[in-house]
């Protein structure tokens, strides 16, 4: 009996943690890219919601999970277009525009969900998974960790790719320069605005994918405000990871697991208030911020618009 309890507990903990963790990972990875380039995306929450809604609509009407993910990416990138035009191109306040994107994303997805699916509440089936041959046979953890939809493996590949781009390519160097010392990048003959625009678009695409994963794989449906602050958590994860994609993965799964503790405990029959458990990730972040406040690192040019020739 107790073995059964731990098994259900562990499975729920890990699979729930992975669902929350993967969407956090995508979003935080996107935020890492734009933070490195000097763009602070407070509107991440809105981009995730737009991606989640459009991704769900794509998967529902396109009858394909891949259509859904592509639609989510497009939706997130579209939302970040406002960031690109208003903040990167015109140099408007990134925080104000970010708040606007969050509000607009929350409002518009809620209205659209209400008018389109408000009475039907359609659901998607479970996505097909790919089991890794030997590893998925490990008892207890094997099935929940190594039997995932293909997009999860692709996401891990993307993390490696971003890490490689940051360290080994010219594009990565430009990106970092845009956040560290945009004047130097400009002097080297590379457009700061273009570099930051691409970075912000990538962020939107990743946030949209994160949102789409949440709605398509995680919930199987879209509900208004379903991200529940994950966009803001992703910002914190990106800040604490100090621009290192591998740390982003670690942080995302840690916070993902702390998000799934509540459901896992309930499944295991331990009666603890969900309100208390839902607070854990935020308390963990505050503790991390208090403990590592001096060590969290942000690029010096973060959230500052670049004006050529300005002092």
């Amino acid at each position, binding site marked *: 009996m107790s073995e059964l309890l731990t098994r259900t507990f562990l499975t729920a903990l890990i699979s729930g943690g992975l669902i929350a963790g993967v969407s956090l990972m995508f979003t935080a990875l996107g935020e890492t890219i734009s933070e490195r380039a000097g763009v602070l995306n407070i509107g991440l929450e809105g981009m995730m919601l737009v991606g989640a809604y459009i991704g769900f609509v794509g998967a529902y009407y396109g009858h394909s999970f891949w259509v859904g993910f592509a639609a989510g990416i497009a939706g997130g990138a579209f939302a970040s277009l406002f960031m690109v035009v208003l903040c990167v191109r015109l140099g*408007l306040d990134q925080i104000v525009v970010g708040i606007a994107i969050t509000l607009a994303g929350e409002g518009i997805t809620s209205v659209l969900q209400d008018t389109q699916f408000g009475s039907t509440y359609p659901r998607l089936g479970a996505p097909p998974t790919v089991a890794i041959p030997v590893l998925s046979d490990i008892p207890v953890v094997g099935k929940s960790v190594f039997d995932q939809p293909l997009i999860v493996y692709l996401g891990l590949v993307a993390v490696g790719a971003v890490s490689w781009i940051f360290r080994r390519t010219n594009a990565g160097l430009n990106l970092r320069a845009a956040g560290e010392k945009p004047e130097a990048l400009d002097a080297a003959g590379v457009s700061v605005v273009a570099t930051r625009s691409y970075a912000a678009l990538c962020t939107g695409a990743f946030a949209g994918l994160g949102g789409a994963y949440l709605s398509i794989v995680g919930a199987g449906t879209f509900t208004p405000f379903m991200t529940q602050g994950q966009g803001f958590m992703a910002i914190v994860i990106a800040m604490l990871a100090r621009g290192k994609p591998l740390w982003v993965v670690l942080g995302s799964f840690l916070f993902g697991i702390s998000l799934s503790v509540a459901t896992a405990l309930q499944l295991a029959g331990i009666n603890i208030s969900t309100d208390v458990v839902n607070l854990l990730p*935020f308390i963990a972040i505050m503790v991390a*911020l208090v403990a590592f406040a001096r060590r969290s690192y942000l690029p010096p040019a973060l959230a500052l618009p670049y004006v050529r020739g300005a002092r």
Partner: protein
Amino acid sequence: MTGATTDTALSPETRPLEPIAPSHRFVSDALDVVVRSIVPVLLALGAGAILLLALGRDPITFYSNVWKGGIQLTAWQDSAIRAAPLLLIAVGLVVVFRANIWNLGYNGQFLLGAALISGLGPHLVASEPRWLALLLLFLVAGGAGAAWTLVPALLKARYETNEIITTLMMSFIGVGVANILIKGPFQDPSVNIPQTRVLPLNKMLPSIPGTRIHIGVLVALAAALLVHFVLTRTSFGLRLQILGANPRAARHVGVKVPRLIVMSFLVSGLLVGLAAAADILGTWGYVRANWNPAYGDTVIPFVFLARLNALAVIPFVVFYAVLSTGGDLATQQASLSTDFLLVLVALILLFMTVIEYLGRRRALGASYLTPGLQQALRSPRLRRRTSA
């Protein structure tokens, strides 16, 4: 301008430095304020109308329903009541935003204050005289709001930790703690729904005679006046402004920056807490679990539109109070989710930044120009007259 023809004959050096007469300047300044503040709102309402059309709703019916539900008959009193917490939060945000500090944790501060007073309220009003109980409850809510900003304030003051993140995280925690309090110690034992005990109607904030408007509205107005006085007429206000304009300069002129950061956070949290007191003690009388009106989110654009001026905030907040009170009816009639109002607010924010950009570019571009050209750009009518 009668001297237009002689002006063109003078070389730029000998031209008077202020080519626009004072009366002109006053008019153009006033026009500037109107354009920058009201045009974004009109553009947003227009874009909202297009959005309504796209959703297959009639925008004229929608906006006339807003008028009906927000102004007509006695609906304006509901709008005034709605304005009280909005105004207090807006004024609280003005204080920190002036110092270029982002207190985005208003939801947690608000709900924590609301939960505390609706938990303590029934006991206090039963044992103390009404005025004392209400005063104490206002202080409790304000204190709770202020206390909840302390961690972000200290982190910002000591380690320059990004306060956007810390206040947001504290906000989520605050909302959660409020829910725990409502479902736990403050739960009304006589009902099954998770909510606090309801304050008796005759123990809530008294109304202004002849209306349903409670005196919380007057408290909010008084707070706006007081904050405006402090920000514009005292050294505290000046120091805040210096800190907001340039923290290095502030340190240079001897402002104790860490202390000022903590102070402005505390004042801001206090005002947000007072908003909770005005709302609970004046309007609701109890709090239900998972209730989160998120007043702060919707009030932010208007704080910016008012150029961080505590007096100018009042008309904007009143406008939004009407929009949201009437919007409840309008969205219901159009069978839309009330979250449509969030979209309108976001549109106002976006248009505001764009208008601001256009204004700034005009101001920046003008500084490179010779005075004659500058003036010609400023008022095209004048240019036509001089060239004729």
